[in-house]
């Protein structure tokens, strides 16, 4: 009974090191248990306990296996972040342009007394947005340069940390840009009576806020999950 527990304990040990991806962790745990029991069954001549020990020993070091999975996960997260940043920037741009086109189409002018404030906020908006675009493209360029999969968890970890930093800068710039858009939209809506005309500005703002929210959520979830891969670096 105690020997049988060795297989479960080994599978648990390996699965525990894959905490960065809970679904993968569950899957690997079941695969490892099945593999080890198969290996034990294939050695009927040996004693049960010896066969279990031999199967675990032949399976290899749990840290080394976890490192290989972690490397794959880190590379995947890098790609996911790069794609998310660019999609969100594209979404915010489309929403912004749609709103501005709607203002032009409906000849919706700003009140004279808020134009100075709107100009200042608009400048902040533009600079912040272009900062997000430039940093987003820098992230892409880094992804392309680092396209060949890193050979180890250390290199993959370092690369993802750099992409994360760029993603945070891009997300922060987008937050400033979307907040500025919100102020500009509020200035425009404040001077008008509530009507169906409000729909496009409201929807476009909702798209921008949702996009930035998704980006922040994904960046944060990668940071949280990276705690497990950081632990692997110390083993």
């Amino acid at each position: 009974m105690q020997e049988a527990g060795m297989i479960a304990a080994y599978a648990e040990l390996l699965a525990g090191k894959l905490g960065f991806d809970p679904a993968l962790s569950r899957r690997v745990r079941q695969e490892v248990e099945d593999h080890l029991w198969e290996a034990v069954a294939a050695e009927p001549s040996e004693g049960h306990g010896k066969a279990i020990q031999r199967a675990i020993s032949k399976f290899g070091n749990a840290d080394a296996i976890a490192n290989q999975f972690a490397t794959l996960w880190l590379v995947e997260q890098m790609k996911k972040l790069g794609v998310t940043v660019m999609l969100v920037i594209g979404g915010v741009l489309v929403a912004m342009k749609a709103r501005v086109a709607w203002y032009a189409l409906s000849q919706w002018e700003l009140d004279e007394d808020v134009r100075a404030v709107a100009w200042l906020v608009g400048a902040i908006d533009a600079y912040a947005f272009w900062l997000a675009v430039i940093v987003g493209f820098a992230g892409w360029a880094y992804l392309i340069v680092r396209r060949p999969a890193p050979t180890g968890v250390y290199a993959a970890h370092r690369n993802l940390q750099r992409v994360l930093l760029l993603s945070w800068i891009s997300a922060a710039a987008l937050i400033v840009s979307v907040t500025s858009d919100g102020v500009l939209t509020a200035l425009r809506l404040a001077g008008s009576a509530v009507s169906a005309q409000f729909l496009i500005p409201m929807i476009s703002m909702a798209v921008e806020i949702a996009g930035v929210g998704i980006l922040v959520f994904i960046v944060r979830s990668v940071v949280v999950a990276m705690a497990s891969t950081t632990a692997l670096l110390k083993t």
Partner: protein
Amino acid sequence: MLKGHLDLIVLAALAAGPAHGYAIIEEIKRKSGQAFDLPEGTIYPALHRLEQAGFLSSRWTTAESGRKRRVYALTRPGRRALTERRAVWERFSDAIGGLLEGSPCKKPA
């Protein structure tokens, strides 16, 4: 040396049909005449990577023992990748063979 060719080895082991991790390892050992005795656990990150690349598909089945078992199979891109990598390997092997034997290889590598 094995590490750089693990993908080709795994794809080749699955060429005969779908199999689970342990069966793939056994197939590799059998076909290589026990020459490739790699740590068995290293097969799983390789299977995961190949699945992510679209070369393999996998599904859960239930083994006779009642345990859940993940079975892997080559996809169409996987078969194509195997054919391509096999051709590259054969050219490389011919070239090295030519060098070692001192006679020019048949095809340019």
